[in-house]
């Protein structure tokens, strides 16, 4: 069930340029069901920023009621967040959304593709897949060397290809270049990252089982306000739309128009 409560900051550190790893502790962790779910964080003390900020869950430690989020400082809200220190509290609403399905036969191969700040939610996903004896292949794209993070952690879980737009770390190019070159054999694809990347993946693998995690500007995060709508691809669909916050943020490719 969704909860709302204060979570204590266990630690916060800058792990790459403008990329922060925030470790939080609180009861809400027990409610997390799947990787790819997100939380909605209150940033700032008063009415400015007014709205919560959606941040994906990157790693869960159920036993200690601890979860990790990784975020990039973009504007006011995330900048405020980055200044909070160990021992302080953050008001968190969550877990929200449905996340990635992890049910899969052991021995199968999963291809995980992340772009930039879309990488974090794939980490818990990869861990859970590995626990189910699924082979994972990671392809992670970043803008440039200073923005690269979490690569060692991914490498520990499976083969990991890194690309940067400018070639300053790993191969030069986009994640799709790796796919072209390697021509992986896989049973399921999971991806999170910028919309152009997700579109390219959807087009490239029309026959595959592909799960994409989407972003949209939100207000409530719980499905009440209709802010975060995407139209369905299927014109005959009964509702004709999906809410990213509560029906998503993960959708099977083809369900909504990107």
């Amino acid at each position, binding site marked *: *069930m*969704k909860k*709302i409560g204060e979570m204590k900051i266990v630690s916060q550190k800058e792990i790459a340029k403008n990329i922060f790893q925030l470790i939080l502790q609180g009861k809400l962790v027990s409610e997390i069901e799947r990787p790819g779910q997100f939380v909605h964080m*209150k940033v700032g003390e008063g*009415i*400015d*920023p*007014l*709205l*919560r900020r959606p941040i994906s869950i990157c790693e869960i430690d159920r036993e200690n009621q601890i979860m990790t989020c990784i975020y990039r400082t973009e504007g006011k809200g995330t900048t405020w967040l980055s200044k909070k220190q160990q021992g302080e509290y953050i008001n968190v*609403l969550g877990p929200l959304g449905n996340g990635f399905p992890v049910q899969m036969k052991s021995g199968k191969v999963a291809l995980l593709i992340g772009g930039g700040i879309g990488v974090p939610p794939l980490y818990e996903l990869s861990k859970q897949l590995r626990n189910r004896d699924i082979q994972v292949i990671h392809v992670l794209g970043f803008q440039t060397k200073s923005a690269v993070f979490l690569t060692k952690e991914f490498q520990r879980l499976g083969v990991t290809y890194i690309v940067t737009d400018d070639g300053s770390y790993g191969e030069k190019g986009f994640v799709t270049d790796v796919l072209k070159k390697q021509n992986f054999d896989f049973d399921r694809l999971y991806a999170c990252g910028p919309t152009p990347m997700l579109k390219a993946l959807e087009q490239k693998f029309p026959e595959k089982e592909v799960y994409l995690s989407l972003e*949209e*500007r*939100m*207000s*409530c995060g*719980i*499905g*009440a*306000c*209709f*802010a*975060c*709508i*995407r*139209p369905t691809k299927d014109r005959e669909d009964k*509702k*004709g*739309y999906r809410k990213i916050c*509560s029906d998503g943020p993960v959708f099977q490719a083809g369900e909504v128009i990107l």
Partner: protein
Amino acid sequence: MNRFSVSLPGLQLKNPIMPASGCFGFGREFAEFYDLSILGAIMIKATTVEPRYGNPTPRVAETPGGMLNAIGLQNPGLKKVMEEELPWLSQFDVPIIANIAGSTVEDYVSVAKEISEAPNVHALELNISCPNVKHGGIAFGTVPDVAKEVTKRVKNVSRVPVYVKLSPNVTDIRLMAKAVEDGGADGITMINTLTGLRLDMKTGKPILANITGGLSGPAIKPIAIRMVYEVSQTVNIPIIGMGGISSAEDALEFIYAGASAVAVGTANLIDPFICPKIITDLEQLLEKLNIDHISDVCGRSWKHGISGYHCP
């Protein structure tokens, strides 16, 4: 809870707090957080004859102390609201105020006629003031004669009392209030959002796909309070006040201004527990201020003895 009960045309409210239309869907999401029966009433999302998809995204943008929305009246349409949403809501002991919208007078009449038959709909709220739809909406809300006409027509067919929701985007809101009172409105709800715009720093273009959106949240509260103050001294029908309420103090300020009850909008989107919280806090606040009954202080800001409408 007796210092809290308010009776208004069609509505026996346990307390004067209700969620505002469009910020609470049809209640399903909030029922996961608390028992909806504790609410004074529920204003459901605007319903139109046909289902509407609404505007393209982005549909929301943040502003200093407020937010812009341009949802565009997305809703599942009259049929589904009648068959699924209202029956679902009937499990709760709470009166429903059905917010209705349309592009033509006929639209309003059709929805009003049918939705007012639903057993748990105790009142209608005519949304003649939505700034986010291309046709109708805004003209209904800014031209007194048009507002009067649509009110009259809806009154003719509605089986429950009719409240009209006023737009703040006008030079003199008292003229609009008087017009809908003349049209037979049983009450007024106010205010809807103010039209606003935000531009993206990098592109220079509007953040919302719809370009402009409706401004809501704490930022607009002093404007809403001023308008409730003006209108409550102008008409003889009760007002449900709204605009930026996020605490018991805010709620009481609207009552002082001349509202008989209040609605909470945007704050629900930030704290799903805000309505129960305000209900609890308000009771304590009245205690602290030695107010015996909430209605005793309705219009306190302008009342010397008793003049104008005596809030119930």
